[in-house]
């Protein structure tokens, strides 16, 4: 019954947000440009750095694991802080108001946007780790098993980052100070 009500509300919302062919064409155009101008050069830069001699020696050095741990801690702290401004579980104002004022459980109402945000962050981290892992396997002789473990760790880090992001959204403002103890704990 809850699912039916949710689907009906989404149906009314989508019914007034039908996209024309022009809208769709513009989305494709923007995505292609973003890919060509931002994403592809970024990925290429990561590959050049990771696969270069200096990058390989840095990534296989003793301090690399410590640096990665710092990055993870910074991501989690950043997730908590970002959650105060813009959380992962978000809908446009009117459907958010209508749905969260109803007796439909908020976990159900906000599941889709939460999954969408989590997917984006997990995909970004896993993709980056894949690129770096591939560079290490092909250029420095790192074992495939180790590179796979690195990618899995990145995936898990992405999930934890999404959770800290959600936690930041749900907590009162003063608790956004929590990232700093977290960073100190890491140190």
């Amino acid at each position, binding site marked *: 019954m809850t699912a039916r009500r949710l689907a*009906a*509300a989404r149906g009314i*919302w989508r*019914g*007034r947000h039908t996209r024309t062919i022009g809208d769709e064409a513009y989305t494709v155009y923007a995505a292609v440009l973003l890919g060509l101008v931002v994403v592809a050069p970024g990925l290429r830069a990561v590959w050049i750095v990771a696969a270069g001699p200096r990058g390989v020696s840095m990534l296989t050095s003793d301090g690399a694991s410590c640096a990665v741990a710092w990055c993870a801690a910074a991501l989690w702290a950043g997730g908590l802080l970002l959650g105060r401004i813009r959380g992962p579980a978000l809908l446009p104002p009117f459907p958010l108001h209508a*749905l969260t004022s109803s007796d439909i459980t908020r976990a159900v109402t906000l599941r889709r946007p939460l999954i969408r945000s989590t997917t984006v962050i997990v995909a970004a981290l896993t993709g980056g780790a894949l690129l770096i892992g591939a560079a290490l396997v092909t250029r420095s002789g790192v074992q495939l098993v180790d590179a796979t473990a690195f990618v899995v760790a990145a995936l898990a880090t992405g999930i934890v980052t999404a959770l800290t992001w959600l936690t930041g959204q749900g907590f009162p403002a003063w608790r956004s100070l929590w990232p700093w103890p977290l960073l100190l704990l890491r140190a």
Partner: protein
Amino acid sequence: MFSTNRPTTHASATPRSPAGSPLIEVDAVSVTAYKTHLLAATTFTAEPGQITVLRGENGSGKTTLLRTLAGSVRPTTGGVLIGGNPVDERDPQFRRTVAAMIGLPPMASDLTVFDHVALVSSTWEDDPGSVNSATGRVLDDFALTSLRSRYPHELSSGERQLFGLALVFVRPFDVLLLDEPEQRLDPSRIDLLARAMLNRRSAGCTIVAATHSDHLARRTADLTVTLESPR
């Protein structure tokens, strides 16, 4: 330190519920935020099927009291029970019981008046037929039927106020909280509002409304709580 706000019961007050338990119990509730007193200690109870009107000058804490009842503000002292339970707006059962219009709700620029009201109704009704009939009924109640195809930016400020009221009256509730619902309404539209409130009271709903309108208060109040500015 605080004055204590207490209610005045009108001769038209409805009797207590058969069970004898009030639906809303506000016990010595006060609110202070960052050393600023927003609401002096206030005590009153409201029975099922009763309209309580909050009066008081600007800054006396009417909106704060309504927000406390709605669960968006925590009382600094005292407590609130609704249906015998503490206020918890994260509880779906609480949201089923309590509806509130404290300020205008957000509106979508590309949804019509009918779409808005139907969307809210669809979050409560399983059957599409019930959604359409509830939507049509509430648009009639607030004289919005002729405006059903308009977008929010095509409404006057008074029409937008009626539209906001329709969005809250279309859903089921046992307790309705209204903050100055008469804002921007002409006398005939205030009569529409009063009629809608009285109809819901007849159906057993409890309403707490803050108002500066003597006319609305005279027409609807079973109980008046006059708030004094916190010092």
